């Protein structure tokens, strides 16, 4: 798990680098700081289980099994990208690893995830579907419409709300009334709150939810408290009007999910510092090789523009 989190971290720092050196087109919403959520949840899943992701989706894709090089190809609009360059950062889909796609519409995948769960149930598989979304999506009606049906029909879907405190540039307390957990509970969906910076807690909660879903007991809701270390997107540099430098520093210092896991493992005598250095070195190399590959990879032929409008 540490390796996966470190890979996401290294990937995202490279995305930042690509962006600020103007080698990457479009927008980039970094996941740094939230790695434990994607990794903890996806670790409880099998490859054939489904996920749906968000505009902040690189971590979900990697945690579910996407490859670094092909992701960079997509981010750079290259032909070998997961979506042949058509999707870009916000739309990476990889059905081979169960990823039904990232979504640039906040709340836009709530129906898709429940639908995948319905389909698994109808087809008689024991697959589950995880719907990742930010707390901002709690404002969208479709989330509740889908949850109502998921509860009524006992669908194997897990709602993973990543509460990183901010909807873009506004604190969620200014946009979200009442108790978040009371919302799924109103539909009879069991809900629990976990420390999203502690991958072991996330994994434990995800395992409970997955087991419930596989037993046919229906949907669950996990509220994962977390934090994005960078801005809303890479261009969001001056953040002082909506959150303080001290707050950012505190999270980076005290609540870094990589450090939390690392110090627990060292204290428990499960690993030595040198081991982590080795892992970080390895993922850095993988990321550098991936981006180098993607930078020189060819663009799609312009004639592809009209392909794939229909299947």
């Amino acid at each position, binding site marked *: 798990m540490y390796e996966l989190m470190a890979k996401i971290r290294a990937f995202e720092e490279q995305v930042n680098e690509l962006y600020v050196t103007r080698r990457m*087109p*479009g*927008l980039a919403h970094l996941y740094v700081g939230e790695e434990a959520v994607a990794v903890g949840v996806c670790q409880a899943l099998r490859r054939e289980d489904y996920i749906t992701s968000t505009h902040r989706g690189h971590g979900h894709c990697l945690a579910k099994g996407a490859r670094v090089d092909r992701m960079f190809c997509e981010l750079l*609009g*290259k032909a070998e*990208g997961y*979506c*042949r*360059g*058509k*999707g*870009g*950062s*916000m*739309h990476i889909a990889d059905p081979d690893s169960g990823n039904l796609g990232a*979504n*640039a*519409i*906040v*709340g*836009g995948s709530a129906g898709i995830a429940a639908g995948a769960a319905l389909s698994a149930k109808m087809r008689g598989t024991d697959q589950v579907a995880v719907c990742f979304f930010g707390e*901002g*999506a*709690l*404002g*969208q*009606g479709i989330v509740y419409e889908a949850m109502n049906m998921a509860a009524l029909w006992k669908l194997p879907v897990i709602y993973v709300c990543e509460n990183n405190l901010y*909807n*873009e*540039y*506004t604190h969620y307390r*200014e*946009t*979200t009334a009442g108790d978040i957990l009371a919302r799924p509970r109103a539909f009879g969906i069991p809900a629990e709150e976990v420390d999203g910076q502690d991958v072991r807690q996330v994994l434990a909660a995800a395992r409970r939810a997955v087991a419930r879903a596989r037993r046919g007991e229906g949907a669950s809701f996990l509220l994962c408290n977390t934090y994005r270390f960078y801005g809303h997107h890479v261009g969001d540099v001056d953040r002082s*009007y*909506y959150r303080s430098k001290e707050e950012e520093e505190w999270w980076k210092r005290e609540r870094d999910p990589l450090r939390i896991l690392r110090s627990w493992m060292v204290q428990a005598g499960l690993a030595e510092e040198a081991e982590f250095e080795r892992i970080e070195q390895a993922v850095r190399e993988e990321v550098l090789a991936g981006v180098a590959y993607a930078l020189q990879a060819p*663009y*799609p032929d*312009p004639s*592809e*523009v*009209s392909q794939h*409008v229909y299947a």
Partner: protein
Amino acid sequence: MSTPSLSVGSDARAGVREITMAQAIREALAEEMRRDPRVFLLGEDVAEAGHPFKVLSGLVQEFGPERVLDTPISEAGFVGIAVGAAMTGMRPVVDIMFGDFLTLAMDQIANQAAKVCYMSGGKLRVPLVVRTTLGATRRSAAQHSQSLHAWFSHIPGLKVALPATPYDAKGLLKTAIRDDNPVLFFEDKMMYQVKGPVPEEEYTIPFGVADIKRPGRHVTLVATSSMVYVALDAARILAQEGIEAEVVDPRTTVPLDVETLVQSARKTGRVIVIDEGYRRYGVTAEIAAVIAEEAFYDLEAPVRRLGAMDVPVPFSPVLEDETVPTPEQVAAVARELCGRA
């Protein structure tokens, strides 16, 4: 945008200060809010953040959080709330960050706002402005790049404005706010930094009045929003070849200034319509049909149309650039029409 500053069109005058489209919009909102206490703003990140494109910065400082409301990410909900507020005496201006998110509020706009006046036999009115964006070429991919103004032009009960210059943006927005009907106001997100002359003194621009952005006599280029710049670039290319293109900007698609379009068509006998919405069933089709109906016997050639390619907007730069009409394409069609191909 290839043209950073635009001082063409019938309303441009020398010696007027130049401001950006974003400033022009901000000024229009501030002036209307000062003039009329019923005007208020709502949308995502509109207050302290001043909107992701910084179009609204400073407004919450002047008018306070009671009149500049940050909403949850609840497009259907806050548009619906604006409709209700509009029906009961307020004049809300709603911000939908990207035009693509209009689809989440479609019921509230198309079934509620658009119908209320008619269904109530004229007893109720909905003085609502929905400001939003259109336009590709930001590498924002399929869910952040659409130009959906044709959808709304299709629905009776809605008005639709598409300013191309800072001057037009300010004057049309003021008119929109004063209108007693729901108005969809589309701003091209690539144009916020475009500069142009805007007078200090108060003015408004009536809806349904097209503007001739460049006079000409051989071919008419009817163009909306950022396609006005594409058309002007095409006109410059054509001018070097002795073809004088007239560029006409309808400025509002509902109401549509049929008369000016038809007059220009009669004058030149050749018309190309350029719009960034999907070409199929789009604004270009409507305008071409109107011109064919009204000026058929004055035309030297069939009316031609250029629009966004009928594909979801792709992310990859090499693909995205294929989807939007270019000045070269417009010029090529114009040469064909003028028998110079």
